[in-house]
């Protein structure tokens, strides 16, 4: 029994690494077509993040929002509702966190910090919940509604940081950079390593990963959500209010993404600025899928992806290959991972391919033998 579990884990990790290798291989072909040396580019991409204290801590800085968004994705995908709205939910969380912190500058840390974090969760949760409500009540496809909500949130966010919430100093100096003022210092998340950007948000994300695991597998609500994801009709017959759990699931996903936005503001930038979410809403999906939709699996997946994204930034500076390539590679990772699901569902296919290949090889050698 234990042996079997260990074996299936081993197979899963092997297939995932195969998927990653496949994506990177196609990425290398793209690099060659783009006129770059893939070996040089990849060696910077892979050694950069692990080569120094800066690289290691910065990897975790990048992994933090990925892990938070990814945890929300795990909850929503497990419940059978696909949340593509992470990007918009991050921005709603970030701007709400900034606004609350800026409105109450004199409040003590013990009250203000939890309040700011909670506000961001509520904002992201509402933004996700809208899509959930539209799906549950009006049968609106959640993938389409969340994509539209992303665009709406982005424009709303830009409007706020260019207009009503712009840093008064930017206006006074006439520079007009679209960003809010610095949030009060007592809500900044503590930096963990002197001189580096790594902050307590990473620890918070790790704790929440364990919380989500317990929530999904050890509580009644979590069990019902997974039941809804596994079979909505059967759950309905079983007396589970499917609509309620769908809305709850995507609202929770939104809350996690909103929290990621707040953590980026409080831990990294200390203000809301234009390019706050560097595609984290989408990369979080990759992290969750690569973690096989398991909260604990998402931890190493987020760190691996954080390293990949950081590595691509370093590569851009060193060999002038645009970091946009990492988005293409992430897309390929998704395609490979979802394709490999077939092999996981039907392991006999692997043996069939294997035996067919072997048997033809044997046949060929035999024929070759008789031919001579």
């Amino acid at each position, binding site marked *: 029994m234990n042996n079997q579990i260990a074996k299936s884990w081993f197979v899963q990790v092997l297939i995932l690494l195969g998927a990653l290798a496949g994506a990177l291989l196609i990425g290398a072909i793209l690099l060659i077509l783009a006129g770059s040396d893939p070996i040089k580019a990849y060696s910077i991409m892979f050694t950069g993040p692990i080569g120094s204290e800066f690289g290691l801590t910065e990897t975790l800085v990048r992994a933090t929002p990925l892990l938070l968004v990814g945890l929300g994705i795990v909850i929503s995908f497990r419940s059978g509702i696909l949340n593509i709205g992470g990007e918009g939910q991050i921005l709603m969380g970030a701007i709400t966190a900034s606004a609350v912190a800026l409105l109450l500058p004199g409040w003590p840390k013990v009250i203000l910090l939890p309040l700011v974090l909670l506000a961001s969760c509520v904002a992201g949760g509402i933004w996700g919940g809208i899509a959930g409500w*539209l799906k549950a009540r009006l049968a609106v496809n959640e993938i389409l509604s969340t994509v539209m909500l992303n665009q*709406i949130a982005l424009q709303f966010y830009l409007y706020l940081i260019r207009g009503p919430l712009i840093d008064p100093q930017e206006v006074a100096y006439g520079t007009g950079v679209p960003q809010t003022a610095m949030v009060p210092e007592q809500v900044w998340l503590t930096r963990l390593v002197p001189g580096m950007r790594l902050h307590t948000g990473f620890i918070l994300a790790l704790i929440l990963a364990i919380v989500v695991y317990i929530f999904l597998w050890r509580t009644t609500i979590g069990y019902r959500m997974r039941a809804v994801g596994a079979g909505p009709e059967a759950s309905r017959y079983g007396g589970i209010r499917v609509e309620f759990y769908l809305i709850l699931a995507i609202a929770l996903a939104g809350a996690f993404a909103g929290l990621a936005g707040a953590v980026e503001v409080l831990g990294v930038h200390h203000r809301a600025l234009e390019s706050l979410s560097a595609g984290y809403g989408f990369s979080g999906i990759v992290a969750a899928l690569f973690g096989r939709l398991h909260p604990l699996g998402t931890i190493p997946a987020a760190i691996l992806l954080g390293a990949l994204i950081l590595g691509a930034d370093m590569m851009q500076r060193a060999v002038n290959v645009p970091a946009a390539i990492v988005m*293409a590679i992430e*897309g390929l990772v998704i395609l490979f991972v979802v*394709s490999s699901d077939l092999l996981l569902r039907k392991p006999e296919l692997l043996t069939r391919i294997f035996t067919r290949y072997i048997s033809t090889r044997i046949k060929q050698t035999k024929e070759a033998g008789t031919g001579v």
Partner: protein
Amino acid sequence: MEDVISQGLIVGILATGIRLATPFLLAALGEMFTQRSGVYNLGIEGIMLMGAFMGFFVTWRTGNPYLGILVSLVVGALMGLLMGIVSITFKAEQGISGIGLYMFGWGLSGLLFRLYVGAITAIEGLRPLRIPGLSDIPYIGTIFFSHNWLVYLAYILVPITWIVLYKTTWGLKVRAVGTTPEAADTLGVSVDGIRYQCLILGSMLAGLAGAYLTVGQANMYADYITAGRGFIAVALVYFGRWSPLGILAGSLLFSMADSFQLWVQVLGISVPYELAVILPYVITIVALAVSFGRVWAPAALGRPYERGTRG
């Protein structure tokens, strides 16, 4: 005097609206075939981005927009093939693989743009093709008959796709494969084959829709030029209930609202730019919400076909 301005304004809004419907029509009519055959291609945003970039790039290098359009069709077909391998042959969850294809197209177009172009560059795209006689009719001529040929093509495709879908054997096979694949398979129709054909056809039209944005409309390429139009096109297929006429109605509703929003900005009415831009996306959500009520959909949509156990 005011009368002249308001008349000119209405003609302007309508003419722009007719033009702006083009990419939605092209992409949504293609997606209609894909979904009718039972496959859900969410990645057309990514395909449109690649079509937009390649159309722009080839036109910029060769000075020939027709070559650019041709290449965008080829790129669309290749990306459709990729999507087919993942979601038909490997039977992957189509919603998620669509997101993967989207990110791939987005990243790749961004990569190629930064590597080979770098900055906003103007190209000479398609010229308006005024239809002799018709374009001289007051108002009507400006609104309907003063666009480039891709616009006319998009509208001509509405009756053509209707005929193909409802009046040809191939269209019948497409509908059969999308509703009762088991029955189609029994009758010797290759389910996966038809699905590949539809997916590749739809993807080619998405690539063309992308090329229209750069070669037929903006005459340049900018990062993420599609701005969610691919997703809106998918929404229009739902809104139009998988029929060419419904898609035409949806595309026009949408493009007219977009045109109105643009003209409001041009006239300098004091609405914050960002809030005006939101309008089309809000309308999409509302349109999806009101088309609710157990709408008919291809029964096998999103369900990979798996034959029963073989001997």
